[in-house]
């Protein structure tokens, strides 16, 4: 029997140790049995072979299964070796310390949750529409750059960020990123971090809403089925409130069946004349509809709309992602796209402008490195963690799963014909929104192996039950076509393609509407808190008038950007999406900067590079992307260059310029580019302030030499639970001792 009692501080006599002796853990880690060695060699070889198939062997096509193997094997190696390295040298979790879920336990917000359950929970909270959209847009640069960034980026940056933020927040009683920034970076850095978070939230909500508008415009089927989610959620909310409180799974299954009915019903409605007349809505009215909806949803009580839709979206998310993973493994689609396309170097891609560096790294944010996760990884999840050592599995491992979702989205987007891909993702300004225009535009790009015909576009539109698929920008429709294409090969054949397409649209719209609603609420509270410093009454968040005014301000802020996006003569997504990625990566830089300051104050300078490297990379990418957006003389890239070009044209008395057909449209471009440019300046300035504050805090800590800590005081733990998915032999041994205890309420951690 292993000696497991050495480290326990819980000497209440009868209780077994609350942690496995670190020496035993270390020994277990170092015991390399032949079987273990063989397994890791096999993983390494399979991963290496997959990377060779993707990167070196350039055949006509590449099979999607290599993406899956390359990703999964790299994740395993990153998780087993790199995250353990970080755990051992940088974080040093101590299972004899109680987590906030234990020492602050209230049975509500602070409640120890089984690690496997919390993994699912945390994954559902971090994964949304982002990892499904970015990779689709980045597919224009070929499959390889996006694949490398998603997989390598997550192992060295994204998962590291999530893990560190979660751990540090847990050591601070579940404090939020904003609070940690204030504690670690002082007043200026902290304030800049909070303003940055608020503005970033606004831009992210606006662009997510733009994705939904682009997916639903001119689509009576989509509008009907997505609109039906509102009455379905209201019904679920009332069911839970008045009829069967707490029957969450039951109501989610009912909601899911209703959702399927709404999708099928949407197909029937879209066939009728009244359905087409009623639900074919242009982009602008649809945007206004979402703005009105956003306001109402954010002031309604949570139980009525947000909570039930959250359940529905969790249910759909986990189910659909498992289904897609299985389908990709079963179908193993062939991918015809080149490894690296001409747009990676020319920067003239029609989907998003700019060269691979830095724009690939801002187009794909979620899935590789997502700053937004820092808001979830601090706050909610740390209050539910049972034992300190579980943060590696939940924080680092949870992000690996999101990265895998991004890889699947990339595969789905790449599995459709490249000509169709560009016809769908080039802006209406380029294609004219017509089949003929799209065919002429795409074939005019001079891409090798692309020969688009009008028939292909008409046939695909017909297959997915849409009037047209030309210029359906934003990523969601492309992903939906890809998903439908893969799923119909498993279930239903081409007859079910329209169903799968609208299923995918619904699936994404559901996440986005929840994100819009929740984002508006969070932003409203942050705004009230800020206004409250001037007008104290605003601090009281239950004061109705203040809540309504603040909500209206936040909705107006993202609504204005949304309207700007849908009416933009330049296309919308292609001008605004870089701002989304930059905002998200800047938040990541802020989160990493806060982590760096914390690590420096702990005195771990030898391993500071673990966070300094991803921070430096995120900073270089976002700052250079921002500078290009601000200073580039190329109008397609620089906001102010575009602005100057259009102003010049107006001054010359021209009545149309570039893709703007009228003086009014030219004025709109002048206005939009000015706003976008100013936002870029704001973001990059705030990020630089935060990073400088963090570097100064780090240097100060280095000079002082001594470590200071803003951690909560250590409280001895009185419970035990294993750390990883599968318990080690020593953990199993200890678990057996705990299980053998007589069942009294006090002994129960679970």
């Amino acid at each position, binding site marked *: 029997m292993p000696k497991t009692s050495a480290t326990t501080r819980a000497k209440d006599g009868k209780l077994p140790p609350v942690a496995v002796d670190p020496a035993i853990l270390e020994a277990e880690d170092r015991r390399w049995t032949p079987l273990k060695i063989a397994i890791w060699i096999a993983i390494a070889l399979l991963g290496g072979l997959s990377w060779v198939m993707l990167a070196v062997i350039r055949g006509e096509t590449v099979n999607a299964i290599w993406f899956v193997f390359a990703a999964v094997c790299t994740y395993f190696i990153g998780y087993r070796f790199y995250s353990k390295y970080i755990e051992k040298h940088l974080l040093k979790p101590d299972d004899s310390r109680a987590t906030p879920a234990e020492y602050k336990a209230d049975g509500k917000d602070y409640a120890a949750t089984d690690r496997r359950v919390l993994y699912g929970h945390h994954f559902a909270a971090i994964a949304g529409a982002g990892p499904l959209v970015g990779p689709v847009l980045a597919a224009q640069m070929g499959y390889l750059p996006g694949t490398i960034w998603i997989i390598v980026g997550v192992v060295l940056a994204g998962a590291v960020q999530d893990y560190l933020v979660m751990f540090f927040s847990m050591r601070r009683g579940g404090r939020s990123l904003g609070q940690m920034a204030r504690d670690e970076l002082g007043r200026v850095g902290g304030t800049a971090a909070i303003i940055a978070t608020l503005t970033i939230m606004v831009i992210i909500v606006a662009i997510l809403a733009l994705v939904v508008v682009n997916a639903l415009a001119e689509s009576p089927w989509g509008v009907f089925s997505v609109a039906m989610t509102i009455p379905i959620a209201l019904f679920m909310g009332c069911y839970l409130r008045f009829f069967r409180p707490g029957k969450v799974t039951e109501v989610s299954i009912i909601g899911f069946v209703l959702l399927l009915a709404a999708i099928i019903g949407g197909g029937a409605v879209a066939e009728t004349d009244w359905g087409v007349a009623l639900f074919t809505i242009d982009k602008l009215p649809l945007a206004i509809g979402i703005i009105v909806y956003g306001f109402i949803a954010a002031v309604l009580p949570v*139980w009525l709309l947000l909570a039930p839709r959250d359940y529905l979206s969790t249910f759909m998310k986990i189910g659909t992602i498992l289904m897609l993973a299985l389908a990709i493994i079963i179908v193993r689609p062939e991918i015809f796209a080149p490894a690296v396309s001409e747009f990676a170097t020319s920067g003239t891609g029609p989907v998003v402008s700019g060269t691979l560096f830095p724009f690939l790294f801002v187009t794909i944010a979620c899935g590789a490195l997502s700053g937004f996760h820092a808001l979830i990884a601090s706050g909610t999840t740390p209050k539910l963690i049972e034992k300190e050592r579980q943060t590696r599995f939940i924080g680092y491992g949870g992000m690996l799963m999101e990265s895998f979702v991004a890889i699947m989205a990339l595969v789905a987007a790449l599995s459709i014909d490249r000509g169709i891909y560009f016809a769908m993702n080039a802006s209406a300004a380029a294609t004219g929104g017509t089949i003929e225009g799209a065919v002429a535009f795409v074939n005019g790009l001079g891409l090798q192996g692309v020969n688009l015909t009008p028939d292909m576009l008409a046939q695909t539109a017909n297959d997915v039950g849409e009037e047209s698929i030309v210029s359906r920008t934003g990523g969601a429709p492309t992903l939906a076509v890809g998903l439908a294409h893969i799923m119909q090969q498993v279930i239903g054949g081409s007859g079910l393609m329209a169903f799968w397409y609208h299923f995918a649209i619904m699936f994404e719209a559901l996440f986005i509407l929840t*994100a819009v609603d929740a984002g508006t609420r969070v932003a409203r509270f942050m705004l009230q808190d800020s206004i409250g410093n001037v007008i104290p009454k605003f601090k009281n968040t239950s004061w109705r008038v203040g809540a309504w005014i603040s909500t209206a301000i936040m909705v107006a802020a993202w609504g204005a950007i949304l309207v700007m996006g849908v009416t933009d003569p330049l296309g919308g997504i292609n001008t605004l999406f870089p701002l989304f990625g930059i905002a998200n990566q800047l938040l990541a830089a802020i989160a990493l900067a806060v982590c760096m300051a914390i690590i420096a104050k702990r005195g771990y300078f030898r391993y500071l590079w673990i966070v300094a490297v991803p921070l430096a990379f995120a900073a270089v990418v976002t700052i250079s992307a921002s500078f290009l957006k601000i200073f580039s003389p190329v109008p397609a890239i620089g906001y102010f260059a575009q602005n100057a070009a259009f102003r010049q044209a107006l001054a010359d008395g021209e009545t149309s310029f570039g893709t703007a057909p009228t003086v009014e449209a030219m004025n709109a471009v002048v206005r939009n580019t000015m706003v976008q440019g100013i936002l870029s300046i704001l973001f990059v300035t705030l990020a630089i302030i935060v990073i400088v504050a963090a570097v100064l805090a780090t240097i100060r800590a280095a000079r002082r030499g001594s470590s200071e800590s803003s951690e909560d005081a250590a409280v001895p733990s009185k419970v035990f639970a294993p750390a990883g998915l599968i318990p080690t032999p020593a953990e199993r041994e200890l678990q057996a001792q705990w299980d053998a205890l007589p069942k009294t309420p006090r002994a129960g951690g679970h």
Partner: protein
Amino acid sequence: MGVVEVARGIRWYVRGVMGEDAYEKYLAHVAGEHGDGAVVMTEREFWRDRTDRQDANPQGRCC
């Protein structure tokens, strides 16, 4: 592992991820920490309190 155990495991996991076991966890907590004397919410009160707390303390969803 028999079919019953697997089904039970799946049910436990789904309930956990969806948060359906929140009230049971609350009851276990109340029984362990406060013992007698403390006011214990009924199931209906608990779920109302839960969404009310979300109203007062919103959490972002990820993009």
